[in-house]
């Protein structure tokens, strides 16, 4: 007999899943919870073979419950049952240690299939989710996101002003050089110092040297 813990704060969903699983002779629902803490307590005492958890449970969300269940009862396999069909949620669930991510609304046969896959230790993701989609998302997110360099914040003009300031140019000189007004040059200076988090004119020179924008002579 395979022991199953079911946690969902929607009685109607619990009822549906229970009805479905109990129609299969090998499954036994040993516990039901409508919030995260109860689910965790039940899992700690019952140590079920399978925990089917809603992603967003009151008191303690499904991700946290997953992490703690896996800590308290390592043999328990966790399947997340969720309404959310977006990659970040799936990703977090998998990171927390869930084996399956099943979308609510999946047909009953698919749900049964997913439960069996989970018990066999095989990852299951409800369509249209897939490992490929998760990977693609990770890749794209990773590509889009990289560590921040404050220098990137500067506009081309601000970079010019920075270099001239570092070389000791006055506003008047900068204005003449870049064909702007001294007032604009000053604005550029204020902006770039704020963007680079620089406090004093000496900081500007120091920063420019550290970045290799100018070489000390």
């Amino acid at each position, binding site marked *: 007999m395979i022991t199953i813990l079911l946690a*969902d*704060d*929607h009685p*109607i*969903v619990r*009822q*549906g*899943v229970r*009805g*479905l699983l109990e*129609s299969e002779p090998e499954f036994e629902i040993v516990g039901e919870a409508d919030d995260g803490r109860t689910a965790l307590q039940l899992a700690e005492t019952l140590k079920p073979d399978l925990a089917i958890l809603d*992603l*967003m449970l*009151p008191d303690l*969300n499904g991700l946290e419950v997953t992490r703690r269940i896996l800590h308290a009862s390592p043999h328990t396999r966790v399947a997340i049952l969720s*309404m*959310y*069909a*977006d*990659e*970040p*949620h799936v*990703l*977090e669930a998998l990171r927390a240690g869930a084996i399956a991510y099943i979308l*609510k*609304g999946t*047909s*009953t046969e698919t749900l049964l299939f997913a439960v069996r896959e989970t018990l066999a230790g095989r990852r299951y993701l409800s369509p249209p989710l897939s490992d490929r989609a998760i990977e693609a*998302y990770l890749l*794209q*997110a990773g590509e*889009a*996101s*990289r*560590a*921040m*360099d*404050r220098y*990137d*914040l500067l*506009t081309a003009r601000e970079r010019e002003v920075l270099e001239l300031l570092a070389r000791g140019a006055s506003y008047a000189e900068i204005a003449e050089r870049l064909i702007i007004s001294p007032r604009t040059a000053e604005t550029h200076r204020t902006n770039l110092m704020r963007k680079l988090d620089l406090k004093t004119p000496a900081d500007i020179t120091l920063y420019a040297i550290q970045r290799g924008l100018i070489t000390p002579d």
Partner: protein
Amino acid sequence: MDEESAVSGSRAEGSPVRPRQRSVRNDKAMDGQVIAHGARPADVRFRVMADSAPVLIWMSDMNKLRTYCNQRWLDFTGRTLEQEQGNGWAEGVHPEDRERCQALYAAAFDARQEFSMDYRLRRHDGEYRWIQDNGVPLFDLDNVFTGYIGSCVDITERKRAEADLREREIFFRTLTTLAPSMIWTAAPDGTITYANDQWFAYFGITPEENALGWPELVLHPDDQERSMVAWTHALQTGEDYEIEVRNRRYDGEYRWFLTRATALRDDEGRISAWFGVTIDIHERSQLERDVAERASVLEAVFAAAPGHISIFDESGKLARLNPAAQRVAGPEREQASMETVGQTFHLRTVEGAPFPPDELPVARALRGEIVQGVEMILRDAEQCDQYILTSSAPFYDLTGQLRGAVALAHDVTALREAERESAKWAAQLDATIDAFTDGLFIYDSAGQLTRMNDAARTILALDAAPDYYSLTPEERTARLQVRDATDQPLAPEEWGLGGLAQGERLAVPVELRITALDGCAKDLAITGGPVRNPQGVMTGAVALLRDVTDRRRLERAAMEHASQLQATFNALAEPMCVFDADGRILRQNMAELLLFGFATSLATIEERAVRIELRDVEGHRLPMERLPARKVLAGATLVGIDAVEVVARGADGHDRRFSVGGAPIRDDAGQIIGGVTVYRDVTERRSLERQVTEQVERLQTIFETIADAIFLFDAQGQIVDANPAGRRQLPNDIADFNARLQQERNVSYVLRDAHGAPMDPADWPVTRLLRGETLTGEAIVDMVAVLPDGRERWLSVSGAPIRDQVGQIIGAVGMTRDITERRRLEQQTRWQASLLERAHDAIFMWELDGPIAYWNLGAELLYGYSRDEAVGQISHQLLQTKRPVSPTAFKEALERDGEWIGEIGHTTRDGRRLVVESRHQLLTESDGRHYVLETCRDITERLELERELRRSRDELEQRVRERTRALATANRTLRRLSQRILDVQESERRRIARELHDEIGQALIGVKMMFETASTENGSRRATTAGGGQVSTSVREAIDEALLRVRELSLDLRPAMLDNLGLLPTLLWRFERFTQQTGIRVEFHHTGLDQRFSPEIETGAYRIVQEALTNAARHASVDVVTVQMMATAETLTIYIIDQGAGFDADEALAAGVSTGLSGMYERAGLLEGTLTVTSAPGEGTTIEVLLPLAPAMEIENVRDSAREATRDGRGEAVRDTARDSVQDQTDQGHVR
């Protein structure tokens, strides 16, 4: 010492009687003085005293003239007083001293001073002796100067001693200075009192340093104690001190020194000083070691040398023998000398004569000669004679004196014996070679002919051409006219003898024809091989020429006969083999060789049987006694039915089948002497037979198993047979059916053509077949058969008439295929196509990267192009398609998702611009080509309407917003209200999103599940009820659709992950979705963002970024937007930068055209932050947002309360959310 000298001086006189004589003379002298001075009693006393004094005494008067010399003086000089008086004494003074003495004397005299002077005075024996003369002025009682008195002492000895001492001192100093060694002296207590310059120079120390403690400075630390102990011992005992120690040289190098010291003792035997020498023996000890080493090497060589080494001294005596020599000599013969050595060892010359002793190498060496390699015979200790090769050389000592000679001898007996043996063999070989009947040529390794025997001369007829040897090799070759067996001239490289020079053995004779020098043609068989020495190195070659001229002539004659036979034999087409009574194969004809591909390599019929894998027709190998050839040899004649059928493998590797005939060959007496077998190839015939059988079987199988019905008709059109598929279509009783068929044909059996018209029996397929038509390909008949139960079946009928050999039709085969289902599908497809055609939407299909293939009526109506105009065109050219994404992004999306949906611009034939909602689906045909099915609906008008709506709403909103801003600046209370509104808006959105998601969504799911469970339980029963299944499916689909909508709606209202997962994941998700929807890439740089912020900040930041992206997508026309975010403890800074079109921010704000912009300002303001837009037309846009962050503690609290609010928010009253949700949806809307 002075006294001593004086005494010795007197003693020198050597006579004891002298004093008396002297006294006599003294008397006389006294007399003389008295005379001279006027005698006075005191003078007399004086003179007596003076004469008895051991010293020479003189007196002089006031005129400097000598008046008196005592007896001792006179004795000394051997002169009389008279001679000495006055200035006479000066005559005895050494001429070199005389003047000086007189001057000194005179000077002192005049000054009345005492004087003392040394001079040499001649003694009576003529020897000048050194005298110290001390003179004092003499005064009388009245103190009147009366003259001088002097006394002299012989100081010669003293002088000499002094000179010696001086000389020795100088010598010592010189010696010590010049000596290469260090010399030193020491006090009895060991204190160094003196050291020569070398000491300081050598050790590089100053005298001061030396005095302070030289041992520490100079001595090697390891030697100090030893040195001290020895030195102390020497000091205590007075024994000589000798030690070897290492001292440090000035350059820091420690070198070995030998120090010796000896005590100097005074007369009492007490040690007065130590005298020491220190010598650098470093090199010497080095040298000694070298010499010892070299000597030991020499000794080892001497002992180990395999040759005999004997050493003779200069007298010619045997001094030493090395072990090898001792063995040869034996113990008793070691005492030989050069003279006897010849006899002792029976030394003889190699000719056997006694070796002349003078000529022995050692004798010559002792005369200074170096002798090498003299061979002689020696009789060894075991009385065996040895050949030895001796050498000898003298050796000298360092002075070049000849000190002896060394003789070396090697036993060369074995070598000499081998040489003798070899000579013997050579002689035998010579004899053999000359006795050879074959011509023999011997070449050296360079290929030069070194020898040739008599037979060779005869073969080449060299005697006929004495000038042959004066020719060059080329000319010789030309003279011989070398040809092959067919008289074709051969160039030397074609002779086939080249391998000989490379060391190959000519195992198979090379046959050449030459013209001998006497003009006779000769056939030669040449063999040969390399000659190698025992090491395997080729030292030359031998060639053997055999004159086969006569044999060849005989062979040729025999060959002619044989070839005639062979020609006949070979001309036979059947393989034939002749063998003798033992089964040895004698010959095989060409046919057999071609077939089995072998000849001489096989000797017997058994071997041949194995080779050709002779088997019976079942494939079993034939036992040897059952071989056809064996049967023949047993007397059987294999002809006709007796022929044996076998299988054998041909040269081509294929098995062939043969019918083997044969007959024995008998001699005159009827004895079987052999046999002949003939193989007839029957493979083709048999395989043909087999093929026919197989084909029949195959056809039978097809006939039995084919799904199509096959009927066989006789000439009358009666069915005589049918395959199982055909029989299924027939009643059990074919005869009855035939009868019925016959009958009903007359009453028009119900067959209809493809158009549904009844068929005339004359057009029935069977009728046409029997008329001789073949119904295949184009002629296949599609028709409808009405079955007895009234069902109609579509049949496709093909067939062919069956003719006998003369072409008479004797029946027909007909085949019918049930194509009812196919027809139905075709019809359905046609219907569907017509539906597609009639669809209101424009539907057209084009090959990916290719032309339009399909164009429906809707498309014709929408775009104005007819099908004929559109098909074959490139769709985006024809319609000037404008997509919101780049062609690359479009294609990628299409290939990734299989479809693409979006609003695109098209231009109609009459130039109208349309906006259509378009759905592209990628279809892959079975031929692998990709097609795009594009379905387009004109939404131009709808968009116009929407735009109009949006504009009025925007205006409205702008007004509201302006109003709000005015109020906000005027009143902070209002601002808080605004905050509250936004909060409420967010929380309402969140609430609605959650409501939708959690309540409605979950409820839907529950419903769906229950529904599914229910329908599964009642499955079978429900399904049978008409329409039941369809209802359940459509309900399920409706639920799914509703679920999807709920999810999307919820997500668009407010992504749940913002609350659940935080800002960073939500932004990443948003960016991805943004890129998907717009094709604009988001370059995202961030730092410090991997944490949770307060819900207000997370919401605000998310909404601002979302809005900024929306603006960029709407206005900037860029491919990429850069988002930079950094969070510090105090501030969250956000930059949204694009390099796009840009705009005048103030103007836009003032004009109120951008609700998004003001919304962003508002959100930033409500979070106490600032938002700056830097933009100008054409210069891109930078939006900078600074949001202050609350202290960490507060964040926690805020978050918790926010979560609770989120959780509990469901029950709260919803107020004033309508505007917000509208706003939010439109925010999302224009991105989609």
